[in-house]
């Protein structure tokens, strides 16, 4: 049934050019795999990466006679997501069967929601970062949410016998149903208009904001690369000033934030070329290719898309009480964007510092570090500096790991910083202490104790070292007395060397100057 007709890449027009004639309209459908312990309708575990077909049962294999039972936590997650997206929560809604045949769908219908979704009519404000040299301020866009509904995932097919594991040319496929039945929430936007040239960035910012929100809700691990967050992008163009939307295409398989932006941008340029040529857009699904940065034709909309929805007779309605909804509302976390603004203010970071922290995914860990007593500046200094640097090569064979995977806790960092500010350790000693913590030798204090790391607080030893160094360097002493105070640096190094690093360099400098009777 493949209708691929034209060989070779599609025509496109330059992006900036098309915006003079067309207005883009977006529609984004995001599927989120919930992080529940069990599947939507059965008690099978949902862990990622299990051996094939080890997380299946009569229900999620669609065996004869099996019946679904709704996962309570999945419903609660759906309601919390709906509330966080400012949606109304249905007082009564049902599941429906979406009937179509596909080998990775065990019952040949997907249990989903159709005309009675659990959450409707919400919004999410997203911020598109300012373009360098163009904007002063970020661009804020309100994404209107049409609905969020509950459904179940399908199994996973591997295509065998083709050249690259792709569907075309494969001789047969192998299906693993571990994923079949994992709870999904599908979040659908209303048609998004008025974003103009910023449309691709709005799409990206929306998916990013949604990801942050879902992470804050702790309902999903939202890993786009593992498919727990998946985005389908509907794109159409209408001539500037027109009132009716153009024909849309639905681009599937867009699994990174960057790809969302690129895919939307590409489709806009492709649509414009088709429309410029006086031709019309075919309503179809498109496949996004990360490697080449283009979309290719998938499946046209056809008569076969008659899903014969009807209310799922094996399930009863979901009717959340208003008390339940309010109880769940009380569990909502602060909106991630608002939270970010609040923290930036509390911590006194600059816009640039805050953006770096956000991009590094270090907001939570810095917050935790501040919470156990470190100053915001110190927390940022350690996590974004020394620790970020070490994380880059801390993996096996020198690969990068996440900040939280280093084995250093916020409490460790706060303690370490305290050792520095209290004057027990200098920076170089703190780094040595960190080595010990990373090596699993214990807390910073334990490591410093075990390794004998401690600044010498007694000026006696230091004064002796200073006297020795002054006696050994009469020429430098001459210079300093002659007014070249900066020459003191050469002497500090020698003093530190004599102290085997266990001294405060600042104190050494002071003693040298005092001994020579020179003002610093």
């Amino acid at each position, binding site marked *: 049934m493949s209708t691929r007709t034209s060989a070779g890449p599609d025509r496109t027009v330059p992006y900036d050019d098309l915006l003079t004639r067309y207005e883009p309209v977006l529609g984004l459908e995001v599927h989120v795999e919930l992080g529940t312990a069990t599947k939507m309708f059965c008690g099978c575990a949902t862990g990622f990466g299990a051996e094939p077909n080890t997380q299946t049962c009569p229900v999620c294999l669609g065996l004869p006679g099996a019946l679904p*039972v709704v996962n309570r936590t999945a419903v609660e997650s759906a309601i919390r997501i709906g509330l966080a997206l400012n949606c109304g929560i249905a007082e009564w809604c049902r599941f429906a069967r979406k009937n179509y045949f596909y080998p990775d769908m065990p019952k040949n219908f997907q249990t989903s929601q159709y005309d009675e979704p659990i959450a409707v009519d919400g919004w999410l404000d997203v911020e598109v970062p300012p373009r360098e040299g163009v904007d002063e301020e970020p661009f804020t866009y309100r994404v209107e949410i049409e609905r969020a509904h509950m459904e179940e995932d399908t199994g996973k097919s591997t295509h065998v016998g083709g050249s690259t594991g*792709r569907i075309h040319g494969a001789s047969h496929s192998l299906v693993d149903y571990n994923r079949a039945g994992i709870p999904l929430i599908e979040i659908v936007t209303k048609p998004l208009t008025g974003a103009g040239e910023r449309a691709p960035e709005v799409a990206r910012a929306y998916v990013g904001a949604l990801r942050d929100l879902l992470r804050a809700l702790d309902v999903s691990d939202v890993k786009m690369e593992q498919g727990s967050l998946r985005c389908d992008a509907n794109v159409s163009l209408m001539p500037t000033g027109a009132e009716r939307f153009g024909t849309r295409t639905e681009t599937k398989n867009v699994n990174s934030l960057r790809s969302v932006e690129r895919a939307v941008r590409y489709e806009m340029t492709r649509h414009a070329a088709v429309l410029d040529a006086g031709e019309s857009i075919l309503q179809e699904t498109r496949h996004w290719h990360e490697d080449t940065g283009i979309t290719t034709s*998938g499946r046209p909309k056809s008569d076969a898309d008659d899903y014969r929805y009807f209310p799922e007779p094996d399930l009863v309605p979901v009717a959340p009480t208003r008390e339940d909804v309010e109880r769940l509302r009380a569990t909502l976390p602060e909106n991630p964007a608002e939270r970010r603004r609040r923290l930036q203010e509390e911590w006194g970071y600059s816009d640039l510092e805050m953006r770096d922290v956000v991009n590094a995914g270090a907001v939570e860990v810095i917050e935790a570090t501040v919470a156990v007593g470190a100053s915001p500046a110190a927390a940022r200094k350690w996590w974004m500096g020394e620790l970020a640097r070490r994380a880059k090569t801390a993996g096996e064979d020198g690969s990068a790991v996440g900040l939280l995977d280093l084995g250093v806790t916020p409490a460790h960092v706060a303690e370490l910083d305290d050792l520095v500010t209290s004057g027990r350790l200098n920076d170089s000693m703190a780094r040595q202490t960190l080595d010990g913590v990373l090596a699993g030798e214990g807390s910073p204090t334990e490591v410093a104790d075990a390794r004998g790391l401690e600044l010498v607080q007694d000026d006696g030893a230091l004064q002796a070292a200073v006297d020795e160094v002054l006696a050994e360097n009469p020429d430098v002493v001459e210079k300093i007395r002659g007014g070249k105070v900066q020459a003191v640096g050469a002497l500090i190094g020698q003093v530190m060397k004599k102290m085997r690093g266990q001294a405060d360099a600042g104190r050494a400098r002071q003693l040298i100057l005092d001994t020579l009777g020179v003002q610093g």
Partner: protein
Amino acid sequence: MSNLSREDVAHVAMLARIQLEDAELDRLAAQLDQIVDWVGQVGEVASADVPPMSHPMPLANVTRPDEVRDSLTVEQALANAPQAQDDRFAVPRILDEE
């Protein structure tokens, strides 16, 4: 008047993934036309203000706790498979979509 043409039946059979032979299609089309004509009488009675009843018992909010239960073993899962390979169900080549 025919309610259900032979083409209708062929289309619906396609939706239902039943590959009918021509003779079978002819026979079914004739019977189904008669049946559809007869069941169509449901249109005579119920008015717009009658709510549809999808379920005999007025239950709601039947859910289960999010607790893991034993799954089948992979051997059990695959025991009835017409074909299996590498602990997966082997199915013929899939057209269309990725």
